[in-house]
């Protein structure tokens, strides 16, 4: 081993526990963000109409519609609305506009027809409407599903490792991952849809992968902890980077055409980036600490 590398390793061996401060601070900041959100709105996330109830109308436009114009027109006429464009990936040409609002579909449809000057039919538009009671119940159930999933995941982890500290390390990493991701999603201002909640569930699966691999390697392999760590790091980073690159590619292409997929992919990318921090700092340090204390 080179002198400089040796020095690095010995620094790392002496001071690694301090590194835990990074995820701890991030987690506290994220939890405060969620707390702030809850204090301000009564919910920890900003929900879109699939979870609050409301209407989403997609109009396949004949000629390009100016978003600002339609926005000015709709202002004050319908409740809390968001307008988006869908465009062709290759040419970038506007294909459709999506209007999401808390107002009813009948009302919104009438007002939109006034603006575009022709009738909205089942051919030239798609209309999705969800009653507010149902949206509310969807939201509650999905949150419940995420909590239940997390709980079932935790039990499985305990069952696999049968040892409290390593299991706790994995579970904490996944937890931190989800909380940090939601905080960033809130800060960016993404309104979470039911697809977004699916993405959070997918994230549980993706982030637990690297944690299980790491913990198994450290627990079941004999030899130097740092050497095992280095090997596991290489594997884990390949896993996460592959996922990030694949998902980012998919995001770039589907971004302009599907809100549902774009949201799933965005949340996954944010989560996977945090997964690197949480697996390779949070989980690793707790495990190293634990293994060294055990010696």
């Amino acid at each position, binding site marked *: 081993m080179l002198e400089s590398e040796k020095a690095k390793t010995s620094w790392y061996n002496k001071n690694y526990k301090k590194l835990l401060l990074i995820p701890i601070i991030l987690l506290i900041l994220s939890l405060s963000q969620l707390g702030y959100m809850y204090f301000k709105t009564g919910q920890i996330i900003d929900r879109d109409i699939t979870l609050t109830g409301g209407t989403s109308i*997609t109009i*396949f436009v004949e000629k390009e519609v100016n978003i600002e114009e339609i926005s000015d027109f709709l202002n004050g006429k319908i409740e809390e609305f968001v307008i988006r464009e*869908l465009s*062709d*990936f290759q040419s970038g040409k506007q*294909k459709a506009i999506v209007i999401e609002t808390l107002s009813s*579909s009948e009302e919104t449809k009438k007002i939109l027809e006034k603006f575009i000057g022709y009738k909205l039919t*089942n*051919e*030239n538009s*798609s209309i*999705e409407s969800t*009653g507010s*009671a*149902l949206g509310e*119940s969807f939201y509650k*159930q*999905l949150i*419940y*599903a995420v909590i*239940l*999933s997390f709980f*079932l*995941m935790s*039990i*499985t982890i305990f069952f*696999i490792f049968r040892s409290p500290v390593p299991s706790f390390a994995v579970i904490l990493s996944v937890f931190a991952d989800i909380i940090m991701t939601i905080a960033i999603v809130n800060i960016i201002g993404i309104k979470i849809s*039911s*697809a977004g909640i*699916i993405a959070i*569930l*997918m994230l549980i*699966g*993706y982030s*637990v*992968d*690297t944690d*299980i*691999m790491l913990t*198994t*390697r450290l627990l*079941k392999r004999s*030899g130097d902890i740092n050497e095992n760590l280095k*090997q596991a790091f290489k594997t884990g980073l*390949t*896993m996460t*980077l*592959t*996922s990030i*690159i*694949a998902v980012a*590619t*998919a995001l770039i*292409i*589907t971004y302009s*055409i*599907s809100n*549902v*997929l774009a949201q*799933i992919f965005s949340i996954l990318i944010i989560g996977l980036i945090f997964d690197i921090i949480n697996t390779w700092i949070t989980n690793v340090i707790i495990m190293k600490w634990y293994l060294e204390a055990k010696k």
Partner: protein
Amino acid sequence: MNWKIWLLIIFISSSLLAIFPMKFYQGLEIVSVDTNSLAYNQGLRQGMRIISIDDKSIINLKDFQLALSKLPSSENQKLTIITDKGSFILFTNKTLEISVKKIEKTRIKTGLDLSGGSRALVKAQDKELTKSELNDLISVTEERLNVYGLNDVQIKTVSDLSGNNFMLIEIAGSTPKELENLISQQGKFEAKIGNDTVFEGGDKDITYVARTGDQAGVYSCQDSGDGSQICQFRFSISLSPEAAKKHADTTCKLGTNSSLPQYLDKPLDLYLDDVLVNSLFIGRDLKCSETTQIQISGSGSGQTREEAFDNALTEMKQLQTVLISGSLPFKLEIVKLDTISPLLGKEFINTILLSALLSFIAVGLVIFIRYRNIKLSLAVLLTSFSEILIILGISALFNRNLDLPAIAAIIAAIGTGVDSQIIILDESRIINTSLKDRIKRALAIIMGIYFTTLFSLLPLMWAGAGLLKGFAIVTIIGVSVGVFITRPAFSEIVKNIVKE
């Protein structure tokens, strides 16, 4: 070759068989036939394949339109339609009320959010429905949609985590504009004279409802005076003997109309869901008669004559539908209604395929940069590709629709799959123990990941009225295929590559 690789090969080939049917059919498939039409009466049905019309073979939609371009015409035309189920000869001067589509090249069915259609989630207003009430509701709804001529319909009950029961209706293809009425209308039809109910909708009182021919149709249109147009429809119905008796008893009590002496002094009032839709004068000669034939009439209005005509026809069809299917014992509420235009579908699928392809290339590149071995890169891609193929094969086999949640699920499964393959690759390259042990250890990690994913998906089977069940099922299928079929084969392939 190892049996694990054989297993993979068997699964891949069966999936290919499930996705791509062996026979290549010619012609166009009939998607729907209006039950109210001549084509239906002559025996043309949904699912039949039109091979030729008037000896001209039908290959695409253009052929079909061309072959029928002589309609509508002023006089009856003879049409010879040859299908896979026999030939049919029609004499008509009207446009055929059937819709057709190209025969799919694959058996993969795309969901509503990709191919267009509508979905409604319905529950009773202020009332929890029991299982048997729900089943009654479903059979009435099925009948209504059927009478209406909608065939590609799926209706099922769904319940959610909070114990609510819903009826979920999914209709593929284009959505009729009156769908909302058709499914949410209670459809309580009453014919009253004064306060006495003479008969109600449903087969107890009404034995027959005329829907075609001379006994049903829109018969006149005129200016309504205020610039709009109004069209009248009428159709005849047959009453049961009991209802006819009631008609006789009630009309016996009536006197003669003083200003219009050819009629009785009280009209027959038609109520639909407690709203008066029409009042019909009763001819004097019908007094005390046990008549079984009754004419029902009504009207529709619109800005143009065409619109008024269409609306009258729509009103008639709806009224006929509730008269046949009867009413529901409770009021309904549509809690979610999605109508998705089929316009974006194809492009959507192309975009998804493009993004899958590019993601694949990206993954292959990352693996190549890490391991500097093109064979390993190819092995990873091949494994992931066969996973997708097998998931699609299973979906085709069980007629599962491929919708957006299912696509997200495939991504989730493939992502976890690639992760596991990387674990196998790295474990197999560490040289302190035998290759067999290393692979075994890799599989232990993979099983851990598998069970965590499996259990964490279970809650989605019930949450959100089952609308996300598809995601959970496809992911579970995907990760299971990965763990039990593709990954064992992948480890074998890797063993061979590493040995070299």
